[in-house]
């Protein structure tokens, strides 16, 4: 299964959840937000939300700003 992750192609085993994807990428979850196909996925749903083939996953994080 293949997804887009912030403009990079990532190969995944089937039935990965958002939480599993973040673990695979070794990403800290503090200050992180996830959108799949331009829909924001609530943090509480990351461990249930199943990614599908060709999903467009975008990761955002909190940075400094005025």
């Amino acid at each position, binding site marked *: 299964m293949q997804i887009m992750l912030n403009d990079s192609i990532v190969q995944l085993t089937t039935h990965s959840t958002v939480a599993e994807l973040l673990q695979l990428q070794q990403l800290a979850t503090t*200050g992180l937000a996830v959108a799949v196909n331009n829909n924001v996925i609530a943090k509480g749903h990351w461990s249930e939300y199943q990614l599908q083939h060709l999903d467009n996953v975008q990761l955002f*994080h909190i940075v*400094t*700003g005025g």
Partner: protein
Amino acid sequence: MLRIADKTFNSRLLLGSGKFASPQLMQQAVAASGCELVTLALKRLQLDKPQDDLLSPLRAMNVQLLPNTSGAKTAKEAVFAAELAREALQTPWLKLEIHPDARYLMPDPIETLLAAEQLVKLGFVVLPYCSADPVLCKRLEQVGCAAVMPLGAAIGSNQGLQTRAMLEIIIEQATVPVIIDAGIGAPSHAAAAMELGAAAVLVNTAIASSDNPVAMAHAFALAVEAGHSAFNAGLAHHSRQAIASSPFTDFVAAL
């Protein structure tokens, strides 16, 4: 006490976290300023770069984090950014910021009002950055914004209260806190804003780009306190002509 939505704050100085030489310096300036509201921004994650932990030090200082929607050019983008920010920080507090023009960074009034209305309905505590337009500020209030944040001058310009005459009208008419945001370049500007009766001010560039941001943050804190105390004490009226402070005529008569 400064009351915004369901929270109260001791400090009337808000800080932007951008433009500091390092996250540590930003945290030290936040501490020196005594501020209890700090803005942050949102960006796409760069997967090949290490993640900074910005948030733990700020959380340890017990400040209310205020993510902004900077980068959004339309109401739709701002709502998307807001929803991301809410998940990232687990707070409904939001600084709504929509400025499509890269040269002057003037906030788009129409997109801002549209976004504000949607975001309030989605449960956000909306603090909209806006032009110093009294009618717009009233409309933002009417759609349920928790405060209004009219600009003093262009972001980062340090030009002070260029919009002073409009700010006076906004402050007179507002029933939500008026937080003057953008263009405040010196503590004297911040004091002037508070003397007008503003509820608070937001400062970023003037502190972050100072030679000594920690000292400057403290200077701003003093200025905000001075201006607010002066406003409460009752400022003296202007007069076109002199009004003597000493009994000069009596002294001359004695000679």
